[in-house]
């Protein structure tokens, strides 16, 4: 059931909490405590805005175990406005064609169901096309 693992990742999954490097100001997601840009310790929490654009995408018809109910679904690399890329599903497309460069925003959705009815429901970030204009 992997409860501790999902619990440990809740801030990343629900709120895109990463880190900012106090030495070179790089924004890091996922958090890793060591800045990949300058090599120094980076433990300062940073919450990402959740806004970004599609860097690449693919429509998946064959789903791996645990994701069958979602298929077909779209997996994307999203370029967050603060810099990092993140792997996530796109959602709420409503038949809208996906394009590289398309503005998207983070929403919280059910990601997968572990072990059927007796298992846990894993929630986390997905990205949807931006609904309104700039905030």
């Amino acid at each position: 059931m992997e409860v501790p693992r999902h619990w440990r990742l809740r801030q990343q999954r629900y709120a895109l909490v990463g880190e900012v490097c106090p030495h070179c100001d790089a924004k890091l997601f996922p958090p890793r405590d060591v800045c990949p840009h300058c090599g120094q310790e980076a433990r300062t929490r940073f919450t990402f805005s959740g806004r970004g654009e599609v860097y690449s995408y693919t429509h998946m018809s064959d789903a791996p175990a645990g994701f069958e109910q979602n298929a077909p679904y779209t997996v994307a690399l999203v370029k967050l406005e603060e810099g990092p890329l993140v792997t996530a599903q796109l959602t709420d497309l409503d038949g809208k064609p996906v394009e590289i460069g398309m503005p998207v925003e983070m929403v919280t959705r059910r990601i997968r169901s572990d072990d059927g009815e007796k298992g846990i429901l894993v929630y986390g970030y997905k990205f949807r096309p931006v609904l309104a204009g700039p905030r």
Partner: protein
Amino acid sequence: MSDVVIAGVSQTPVGEHWDWSLRNLAAQAVQAGRRDAGGLMPQVVYIANVLASTVSHQANLGSLVASNAGLAGVEGVTVEAAGASGGAAARMAFLAVSSGIVDVAMVLGVEKFTDQAYAEAETALAQTMDADYESMQGATPTSQAALLMQRYLHDYNVQHDCFAGFPLNAHANAAHNPNAFFRKPISRQVYEQAETVNEPFNIFDAAPYADGAAALILTRSDIVPKDVGHGLVRITGSSIVTDTLALHDRTDPLAFQAAGFSIERACSQAGILPQDADLFELDDAFSIYAALSLEAAGFARGGEAWRLAEQGQIALGGSVPISTMGGSKGRGNPVGATGVYQLVEAALQLRGEAGKNQIPGARRALVQSLGGPASTAVTHVLEKLI
């Protein structure tokens, strides 16, 4: 540092071996490899495998393989680096023999993919990705490759069918490889009309996963039995380089930086340039990986490797022949064993035993295996010993 030669090679056919288990496959390759090396007994066996602990519920292959394949008591451990496992195990054997501590080392690649239904086996493969941030989002190795291809089409403003040359070449070469899974050429029309599986990807852009086992025996040239009956191949360069596990942690995902660095290091150790090689057994688990590998190695500029395929430069008679025995696309992709198959095939080319696919006068080969999208890159330089 001692010189290291390949004294023996072996391979089972690649395919769906319903009647052979992990241990059957391993034993066949071990026995055949020792026969090819004039009966040499290894002191250590490095086993390349990715899926046994999940697909076959089997760990500690060192003990299992040694005791089941006539190597009882021999030192044995598993080496795992996703799709680069075979190359990584060969690297360990190379280090062991070149250090002088080990006289004879065996590299055994073995993978049993078909013991689970496809969805379960693919989930097992997804363990080679970042579990917390990639596979948990529903991504798979195939979707990673599709993301790269989509971005490639966008950045270089090319159409999907520019990748046709890679599977066409692989299938044409596999047709003459008795150990290949798919021994049938395909036409451009078949490629262009194939079913899309992960847009923009079609079924011919991904190599088929399969079962197989292959082995190499590495030793010093003075230990090889005089009556071994075939040519010897020297390993003159060996390198492993890692990059980030997750694709999203890279500044330029299309760069395959580890693949490029690994080629540079292995070539500089061998004292050659990549262009000095007569063939390049690269990782074509996905057609986009073949293109990005050629570009990372410097055979083409970014966005132009597909032109090498269009112009026939990757074919047996071209300037940089790749997948000469079918590659993963045509021979089949036995994941952890693939890197060992690549080395066996390159060694056979240099021994002049590649049959209808023989590259005339081949003296030098580059062999590269990738774990994931070049999260690990292993390169070896092989040279015919004259």
